[in-house]
């Protein structure tokens, strides 16, 4: 072929200008496409009111949930009593039955316990608020008046309680009022109280101060008072028991209070967060990692380092006389309460099986049907069209609808998932297979037919060798992609790990379990991806060689 030179091209361009000037539509089609896409995006922005949703989104929640994927929180609940603290942990805490973590330093003192005042309405207005420290301002005298009105169980000051006082700036402590020295000098209480409560002072050792260390932060909690140390900077918070919470000085930037006197929320960065309520302080301390991944707190192996667990498994005395330590350990791991390894793996297996069985059954059923649907194999237009429309129908009724239908029929579980994948893929594979059949090379069939083979042998030796690798390759591709779809239809009731994922996400508590399942799913998908692409490469390679 000779190439025209520049002058020849110019010459042709003069004679046939229309061939060198593409149509307006063609020239600007790219630009037009971009403009349409931009307009459509603007329309969707309005349709879904995206900007509104983005502005109202709770991004701090997103950060917390994301952090939950790889960390856990321990939540000490520091309840404020009249003159001491009650530190409790959530039930089923990850620290076991009686947690006493090193980062919560408790100081105890012998204090008088305040008995409950039962018949509040008959008592003086001050104590009828149900709280002995209710009205305290910052003056000790005020505290005294409260004390006097609520009777004489306020015994002389305790010597030990000084450390409680040291962090308290306001005088609403029942113990050790050293500055006012008021205790014994209390005026006579209102007459109506006296017959009601003649309690004897109950003395016991109680926590009066808790130092909570959260990384760079320190919180010192004492009855009625919280101070937060950020490095060297100290922020003070006052609590009027049962009534209000307030910051001494301006509210620091890490704290948030929605209305004056209400709960103060502290966000302490990665270390965690805290809530100062008017009767308790709740601290969420964040730790990196997956706690109790192998043994939960009920297991005898819990809390032991691996260097001790190892020898125990191999040669240690039996912890449970009924069985060996290894089987006990396996049982503990399998039925771990926090991580539910056994359940997760069983559900994962269900999902894998849904995809596997569904795809294999679908290709087995689609295989004979596609011969009937292919124009060149079955010369019957009616049968061709009928089967093609059946395939279209199976494919177009969504997998979701099939899943809902079979969940009703078989009940939730993998059978519904298998049936849904089977029907959808029979449609898709049938369509693809019949298209592959219609594209086969006719020469081989003619060759086999020309030596007098039966019609079945013509298909077996003339057609099958050409299409079988393609069929297998497509089945493998769908097996791989169905492993992913099986996860989703699981969530609508078709069993498998999808439902478990969905349940774990719904609680918004178990994001670490979600991440664990996601990692397992990713591993399975990558593994199948690899197997399937290897097998397909082998199959298609063979097809090209033969």
């Amino acid at each position, binding site marked *: 072929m000779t190439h025209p030179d520049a002058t020849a091209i110019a010459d042709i361009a003069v004679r046939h200008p229309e061939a060198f000037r593409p149509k307006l539509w063609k020239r600007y089609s790219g630009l037009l496409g971009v403009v349409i*896409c931009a307009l459509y*995006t603007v329309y*969707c922005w309005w*349709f*879904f009111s995206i900007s509104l*949703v983005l502005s109202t*989104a709770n*991004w701090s*929640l*997103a950060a917390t*949930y994301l952090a939950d994927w790889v960390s856990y929180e321990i939540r000490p609940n520091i309840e404020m009593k009249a003159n001491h603290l009650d530190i409790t942990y959530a039930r089923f805490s990850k620290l076991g039955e009686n947690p006493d973590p090193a980062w919560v330093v408790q100081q105890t003192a012998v204090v008088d316990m305040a008995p409950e005042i039962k018949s509040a309405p008959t008592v003086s207005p001050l104590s009828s608020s149900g709280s002995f420290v209710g009205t305290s301002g910052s003056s000790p005298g005020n505290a005294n008046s409260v004390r006097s009105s609520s009777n004489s169980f306020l015994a002389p000051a305790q010597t030990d309680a000084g450390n409680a006082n040291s962090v308290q700036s306001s005088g609403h402590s029942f113990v050790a009022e050293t500055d006012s020295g008021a205790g014994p000098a209390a005026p006579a209480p209102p007459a109506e109280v006296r017959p009601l409560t003649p309690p004897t002072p109950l003395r016991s050792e109680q926590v009066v101060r808790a130092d909570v260390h959260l990384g760079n932060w320190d919180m010192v909690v004492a009855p009625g008072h919280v101070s937060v140390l950020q490095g060297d900077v100290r922020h003070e918070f006052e609590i009027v028991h049962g009534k209000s919470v307030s910051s001494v000085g301006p509210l620091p930037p890490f704290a948030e209070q929605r209305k004056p006197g209400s709960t103060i929320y502290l966000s302490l960065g990665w270390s965690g967060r805290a809530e100062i309520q008017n009767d308790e302080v709740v601290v969420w301390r964040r730790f990196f990692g997956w706690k109790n991944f192998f043994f939960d707190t009920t297991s005898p192996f819990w809390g032991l380092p691996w260097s001790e667990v190892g020898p125990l498994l191999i040669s240690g005395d039996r912890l449970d006389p009924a069985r060996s330590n290894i089987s006990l350990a396996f049982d503990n791991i399998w039925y771990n309460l926090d991580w539910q390894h056994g359940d997760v793996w*069983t559900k994962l*297996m269900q999902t894998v*099986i*849904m995809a*596997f*069985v569904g795809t*294999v059954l679908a290709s087995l059923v689609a295989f004979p049907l596609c011969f009937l649907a292919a124009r060149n194999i079955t010369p019957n237009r009616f049968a061709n069209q009928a089967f093609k429309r059946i395939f*279209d129908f199976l*494919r*177009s009724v*969504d997998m*979701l*609808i099939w899943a*809902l*239908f079979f969940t*009703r*029929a*078989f*009940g*939730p*579980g*993998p*059978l*519904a998932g*298998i049936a849904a994948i089977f029907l959808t893929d029979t449609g898709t594979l049938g369509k*693809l297979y019949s*298209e592959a059949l219609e594209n086969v090379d006719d020469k081989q069939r003619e060759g086999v037919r020309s030596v007098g083979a039966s019609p079945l042998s013509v298909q077996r030796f003339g057609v099958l060798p050409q299409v079988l690798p393609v069929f297998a*390759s*497509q089945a493998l*591709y769908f097996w791989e992609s169905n492993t*992913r779809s099986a*996860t*989703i*239809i699981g*969530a*609508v009731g078709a069993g498998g790990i*999808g439902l478990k*994922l*969905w349940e774990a*996400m*719904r609680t*918004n508590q178990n994001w670490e379990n*979600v991440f664990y399942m*996601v990692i397992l*799913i*990713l591993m399975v*998908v*990558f593994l199948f991806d690899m197997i399937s692409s290897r097998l*397909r490469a082998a199959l298609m390679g063979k097809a090209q060689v033969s």
Partner: protein
Amino acid sequence: MPKPQLSPESQMMARHWDEMTSRKRLYSAGGLLVLLLAMGGSIWFANDSNSGKFFDRLPHLFDFFIDMQPRDWLEPWRALFDLVSPYDDGSLKYDYPAGRVYLTSTLYAPEYFYKMLETLNIAILSTLVGFGFAFVFCFAAAKNLAISPWLRFCVRRLMEVLRAFPEIVIAGFFLAVFSLGPIPAIIAVSIHTVGALGKMFFEVVENADMRPDEGLRAVGGSWIERVWFGIVPQIMPNFMSYFLLRLEINVRASTILGAVGAGGIGEQLRLSISRGHEAKTIAIIFLLFCTIVAVDQFSAWLRKRLVGAQAFQFGH
């Protein structure tokens, strides 16, 4: 037929042939046996861990249809177009006009058409977003346009993770952040689409004809110019074809995500089934079926125009 007399060399060849075929048969039989065992075990496991057993439940196969019988066969149409039902007793089941979406004071869009539009918009928008990102990523991931092997490695791994990451987790996470609505579905489907389209795109780019690129390189074109004028024009039809293919898949995906709480027609379907609203369910299934058929047909027609017979080869 008498056996032909063979020379010793030929006899050896014949023996080798026999050995080869018998070994091949053995392998095939072994593979088939493994497959059968795996299938048997799997089916037993599936049946065992299902809440209802297969043969016990088989008579109930069509319960769905029996439960879904409407009171008369005009009801689904009334539900579809939000017309007043003669059985209206104020309950949600027959109160079709309640869902009308008024465009003007008298003109309304029927509820399910509006929800279907929402699902379609989710699918189209997320396919567009996915297309945009995949378009940028695929050139960095293609071997023949190497920028740096490290970048290629990172982009490819990123796309693999995006593709394999369960959509339902992304949707669930953003449902927690944004509360209910279609935006979590858009994000989830978009993220998956970036991975899926990115893989198909870079394979197309790697199969592109490199001669235009060479010509541009010879006259001193920069990397962007080479890609834009040398590669993009020849791959664009294939990209559009994959875009349309993905759109079909995403319509289904956004329906399913809707059923787990992300808005659109999927949510309506799940709600109406769980509440036992027969006419509404039939109307939704009908609408969904028609829409999927229409989208598939449109996409197949357009793909055929764009790339011819190549349009129907997918899954490689």
